[in-house]
């Protein structure tokens, strides 16, 4: 075949044109949202985190789809991966996400100030039947930024003390009501059962910060003082760090995994290898579900023990739903959120074990009937005593958690806590100065 022949030239030109056209057609065109109001046929893309709430809502979504004719596409990830996803996608200004489940304590300030979250003030205040005022004030304030409502809280949680009823009975002890009693009980049980840890808790530098907060507040300390300076260098804070580190280290003969977040710490308890763990009460189903926990029938729940400053667990909105500012289907997204957080749905979810943010759901005797009675008691007590934040409320929460979490790791490893607190205190002050810019 000669290169110069006409046939070849025409064929070459035609094939190049065809490829070019194909490439142009390959680029996906953005989905056009349906008109306002009627969302039939729209696909709402929702990103959710691994949580009891997500497992529950997934079962109820077919009802929503039948009611409205819309389709819901779920993308579900673990919390760290979810944060990374948001960082990438929201940073790029994607319109692929309509509804996002996020952590108000970790991300509200950052996302809202970055302009990632749509202003929902008119939406939430406009619907009287849905009733924004029914939401508890603490959680509602956490999803507000500069007087604009940017999220709807869906999960509230408080620090509850999970304990093994059988081990406690065997040791002849009462449920600890003070931190000293907790330490003594952990020691006694570990002495009786050397392969069981007296206490297990989160050990990861960032992960443990939120659980340490209950100990911190109960000792009388806090993360940031009223002047906006670091408060972790105070004597009360030091005692809290030391207490937490000793509590985990002294009552176990196993090697302590230094990167445990709640799934790993819970796994130890679920396998029957720990007597106490103080962590979020919203996760209680992991303990009572026989398919996950070998000790599901022996789990007890107690209010957080008292420290020198009383019992001060945290009482916060752990997760909330928001609308992506660059989404083209804000109306459909709002309809989904309205449905998922309506009073009826919240009651239905509460019946299935989700700790929501609506006052009406907590007052509905029917809804909380399936909760373990002890847990309901603990929730009431913790709710009254609770502090409204479980971590420093700053813009760059990740970085802050690493700084204030550093002494925790040192304390658990049995190192020089005072030195670690001193350097963390200085670093935190430097961070706070920069963060508030």
């Amino acid at each position, binding site marked *: 075949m000669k*290169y*110069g022949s006409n046939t070849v030239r025409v064929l070459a030109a035609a094939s190049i044109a065809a490829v070019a056209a194909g490439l142009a057609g390959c680029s996906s065109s953005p989905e056009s949202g349906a008109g306002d109001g009627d969302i039939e046929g729209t696909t709402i893309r929702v990103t959710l985190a691994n949580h009891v709430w997500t497992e529950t809502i997934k079962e109820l979504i077919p009802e929503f789809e039948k009611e409205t004719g819309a389709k819901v596409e779920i993308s579900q990830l673990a919390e*760290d991966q979810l*944060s*990374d996803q948001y*960082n*990438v996608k*929201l*940073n*790029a*200004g994607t319109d692929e996400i309509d509804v996002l489940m996020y952590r108000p304590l970790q991300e509200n300030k*950052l996302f809202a*100030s*970055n*302009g*990632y979250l749509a202003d929902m003030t008119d939406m939430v205040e406009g619907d009287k039947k849905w009733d924004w005022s029914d939401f508890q004030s603490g959680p509602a304030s956490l999803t507000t930024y500069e007087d604009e409502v940017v999220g709807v809280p869906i999960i509230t949680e408080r620090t509850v003390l999970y304990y093994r009823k059988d081990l406690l009975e065997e040791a002849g002890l009462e449920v600890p009501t003070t931190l000293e009693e907790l330490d003594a009980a952990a020691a006694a049980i570990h002495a009786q059962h050397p392969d069981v840890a007296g206490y297990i808790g989160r*050990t*990861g*530098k*960032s992960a443990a910060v939120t659980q340490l907060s209950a100990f911190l507040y109960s000792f009388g300390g806090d993360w940031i003082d009223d002047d906006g300076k670091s408060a972790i260098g105070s004597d009360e804070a030091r005692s809290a760090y030391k207490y937490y580190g000793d509590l985990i280290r002294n009552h176990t003969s*196993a*090697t*302590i*995994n*230094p*990167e445990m977040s709640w799934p790993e710490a819970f796994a130890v308890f679920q396998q029957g290898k720990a007597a106490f763990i103080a962590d979020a009460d919203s996760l209680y189903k992991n303990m009572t579900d026989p398919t996950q926990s070998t000790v599901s029938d022996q789990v007890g729940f107690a209010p957080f023990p008292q420290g020198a400053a009383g019992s001060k667990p945290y009482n916060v909105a752990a997760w909330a739903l928001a609308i992506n500012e660059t989404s083209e289907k804000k109306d459909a997204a709002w309809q989904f959120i309205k449905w998922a957080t309506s009073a009826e749905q919240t009651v239905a979810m509460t019946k299935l074990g989700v700790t929501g943010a609506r006052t009406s759901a907590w007052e509905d005797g029917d809804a909380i009937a399936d909760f373990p009675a002890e847990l309901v008691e603990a929730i009431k007590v913790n709710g009254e005593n609770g502090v409204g934040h479980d971590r420093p409320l700053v*813009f*760059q929460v*990740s*970085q802050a958690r*690493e700084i204030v979490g550093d002494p925790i*790791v040192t304390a658990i490893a049995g190192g020089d806590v005072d030195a670690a607190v001193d350097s963390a205190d200085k670093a935190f002050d430097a961070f706070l100065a920069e963060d508030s810019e």
Partner: protein
Amino acid sequence: MTSLQTPDDVGAAERFSRWADRNRKWLFAGPSIAFTALLLAIPLGWTLYLSFTDAKRSVRRDFDFNGLENYLGVLTDTERFWPSVWRTFAFTAGALTFELILGMIIALLLWKPFRGQGVVRTIVLLPLVATPVAVGMMWRLLFEPNIGFINEMLSWVGIPPQPWLADPSTSLATLTFVDIWQWTPMVALILLAGLTSLSDEPQEAARVDGANGWQRFWYVTVPLMRPVIIAAVLLRGIDALKTFDILYATKGKGGGAFHDVETLNVYAYGLSFDYNEYGVASAVLILFFLIILAVIWVLQMQRKGRES
């Protein structure tokens, strides 16, 4: 060409056609070369640009130039940056050394044909096929100090349980081992390809001259294999410098609580995704890029140096 045509006689279309004809290899490969170049150049250019700014929290926010401030900050950071550089090189050197030695042994063993060699080659290649993240998670479970199988096996022979990944002083070495486990097959493959391409004559000549196995290997095989060895070092070395998956899958953010496995790549990732400090992260990445370029340059010099 049957008749000569002067340039004036040739029309524009014909001129273009002849030019296209002469350069057809560039024209046809052109679009994909351009696409690849853009795919590499645009992110690199954007990263370079960001490294001179104070971009943070979100790239959609306004940010200003701050000159070389990011670079100065990074280069004087003895807490995170320089230790991560040291860890990157320690990890790479350790992994590469053992991968070369073990790979060479495996290649030598597989060199001469033997019965069942297909099966053996497949088995040897298996670690390569698994996804690095899955490998990371699998080894994380195996090395778990309390419920992991490795410590269980050690207890059968009376060795006390080791902390492996849980202890900052042993975690990087443990992960080096995981890297060796996964990538030795690739090095072995490359070296085997080199070995099979060698001619028999130098080996025969050496044998006739009375050289023993080791002398033949060291004085005949290795010098002849030099370009292949350097190619293997180049390929594997650059990947090892950039290792991220097994480190992140086993120790998580920041390379563990004490940053014990934080290499440059893990550090830059943390700066971007945990701290949202895009300017500083970009500076770290550009420096990392320059380090890798320097390594490649040194290896290229090695390759050219002795070949002459």
